[in-house]
């Protein structure tokens, strides 16, 4: 493990631990409105100031990080499982199944993601609690985000199908699901891991995009997306630099993920 990777690992770990300890570390609840001090600058009471309705920004960053960092891997897991099922199986089966799966994934990739997300979000029931809304948002992201990974996996599985050890296994009488589960899937693991890690920052950014459109996690629950919305209309960074805290955190975490990923991909 090189130094950069060690540092990235430490950063992700610290951020995860601190956000998980939000209940103890946050000076105030994420929803509590200090209406006498909206848009306040940093102070002893509010380390990163307050947002437009007077909520403590530091507390919201802590809780928002927890939500984004916990649920993005969950969404990544959903999408990777779907990708393994569609891409892995199609690659393993080959022939018309592979062509059909590739056509379907190409079609899925050509869909305008953002509009699709907006439409799906609009079809959901209205009376759901913020916590359920956040789960739904990330689950939808996971359901819609499998196509790119499926394409990569189908290519890898296709290569494995014609490899010597699979041919030998076939010659030894192994067929169907057993051959797929015992010989193909374990050899797809590095690609699956890489796709899983790649998807996490993608989903964090997708939620941030939805949040910027006001369609992400429901108020008053914070997420990185809703925290980044505060930057709308910020003309000069010099005036209120503390408002950049969520953005800086996002950049640091994404960079750390990329540093971790580059090594995973090499392994893959």
């Amino acid at each position, binding site marked *: 493990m090189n130094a950069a990777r060690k540092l990235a690992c430490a950063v992700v770990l610290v951020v995860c631990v601190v956000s998980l300890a939000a209940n103890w570390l946050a000076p105030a609840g994420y*929803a509590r*409105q200090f*209406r006498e001090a*909206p848009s306040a600058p940093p102070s002893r009471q509010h380390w990163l100031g307050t947002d*437009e*309705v*007077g909520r403590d920004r530091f507390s919201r960053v802590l809780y928002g990080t927890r939500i984004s960092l916990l649920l993005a891997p969950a969404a990544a897991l959903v999408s990777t499982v779907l990708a393994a099922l569609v891409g892995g199986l199609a690659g393993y089966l080959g022939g018309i199944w592979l062509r059909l799966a590739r056509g379907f994934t190409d079609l899925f990739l050509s869909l305008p993601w953002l509009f699709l997300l*907006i*439409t799906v*979000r*609009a079809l959901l029931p*209205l*009376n*759901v*609690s*913020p916590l359920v*809304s956040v789960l739904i948002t990330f689950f939808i992201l996971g359901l819609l985000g499998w196509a790119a990974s499926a394409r990569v996996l189908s290519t890898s599985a296709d290569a494995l199908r014609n490899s010597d050890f699979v041919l030998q296994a076939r010659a030894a009488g192994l067929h169907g699901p057993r051959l797929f589960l015992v010989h193909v899937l374990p050899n797809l693991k590095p690609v699956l891991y890489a796709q899983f890690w790649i998807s996490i920052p993608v989903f964090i950014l997708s939620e941030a995009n939805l949040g910027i*459109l*006001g*369609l992400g996690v*429901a*108020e*008053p629950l914070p997420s990185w997306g809703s925290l980044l*919305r505060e930057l*709308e*209309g910020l*003309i000069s960074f010099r*005036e209120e630099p503390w408002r950049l805290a969520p953005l800086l955190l996002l950049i640091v975490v994404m960079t750390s993920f990329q540093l971790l990923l580059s090594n995973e991909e090499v392994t893959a």
Partner: protein
Amino acid sequence: MNTIGRRTFRRTLLRLCLSLTILSLALLPGSAFSQSGGELRFCLRSEPKTFDPLLVDDDASLSIRYLTGGVLARVNRHTQELEPELAESWKVSKDGKQITFKLRHGITFSDGTPFSSEDVAFTMQRLMDPALHSSTGDAFRSGSGAVSTKILAPDQISIIFPAPIAGLDRLFDQVAIMSAHSSRKEAAVLGPFMVAEYKAGSSVLLHRNPNYWKKDSQGRRLPYLDAIHLDIQSNRDVEMLRFKRGELDLINVLDSDYFDRLAASSPGLAHDAGASLDSDFMWFNQVATAPIPEYKRAWFRSANFRRAISGAINREDLSRVVFNGHAQPAVGPVSPANKFWFNSKLKAEPYRPDAAMQRLQADGFHLQNGALFDKGGNAVEFSIVTNAGSKARERMAVMVQEDLGKLGIKVNVVTLDFPSLIERISQKFNYEAAMLGFRNVDLDPNGQMNIWLSSAENHAWNPQQKSPETAWEAEIDRLMRAQASAADPKKRKESFDRVQEIVAEQTPFIYLVNQNALSAVSSAVEGANPVILSPQTFWNAERLTLNATTRASR
């Protein structure tokens, strides 16, 4: 010095004197050489959809129509009074069906064709042509039957409508007269400016109308400005940056965030004209067929419940926190800024959570472990839908969520993209409460007929009723029709005052705030006086001018 040398010297001296005279005249603000007022620059926030003044339906086209169109009578945006323009005088018949205009003499269109009553007749006939689908014309459609015109003389014309129209004369503020004879069609105008150049997606350039009829008190021909350059720019950040750099002279409508930032850096440039006609409000779904639980419909149909919710919302906080103090707690359907039609007996609902709880208890609601339950044991929880992208409205919804949480009511805030929102609130009625805003450009209550009549599509809480479902809605229907058919403004006001009182008692809409009219005017502009009515900053464009330094630098 020989003769040739002397001549050359004299010529040079003469030229120098002439140049200095011209320069000094040009640099004198509002001087006799007033036709060099410079080029005013500001932004349209969208592409104008049309230059045809009778088809105008969007903000950008409205701005261009205001600057180029000549009207028979104009609502003075400062005094809110109707003033004569192309018509010297007018008379509305007692039955409210006919209006007779006496026109000014000696006026010509920008292309030189003379203006007469034939042009007014042509404009009205075209405006009322059903095939044109003019929304401006819709305001004049009072009943079945055609609108006719009668030319009494070249300077006199009567327009006859099939049914009475209340506030008829004020509607002509929106009717830009077109030429019946000019080959240039809508390019021939009677307003202070005319369209000189249009670059799609980029800009519109207006030049001074050389034939504009109006003069100032000193006999100088208006407008002072040479031109107006309108950039098409939807990004407000870019608009603000360009204004700060001095590339733009006006911003017609500002958000409170931008306003405060500008006021902090350049206090003299930010203008707060006070409460505008715009209001933000929320309402509950009362539609009988709406797919919501029956017990929730019962809450929403209870005036006590609605008034309790209204009383539990801290409007002062909404104004102060969300709009940085640039908004006023709303009273009702009419903003206090509407000087004539506002019912001054009414006051904004005060923030009284205790009184709100008492109202709820009177309806059988009770608190249990910090949560509110109705008499059937159902926890009080509902969602408020609003449009995604409106930061102010989202902030208000979050604050309402917190305020109602203090009464034990659980509110879920849902932001939807606008088409989905409209589909839910106007077609499927699949929502519980909604929060939206109303941009009111019309002072007259007739502009709100499509909201208050129970049969109307925009009767948001329970639209398109075949017959009024409640006694108070029947009463509002009666009063709105009474005011619409009365010619006497006092009688109309009495009727509409009562409508406002019923709305306050029944609270079908929970009015939250009236936003202030915020704008920015560069110090380069002379004669600006921002007002609450649209167009806030350039309503007196014909009298605006740029200062000498700016004129010289452009």
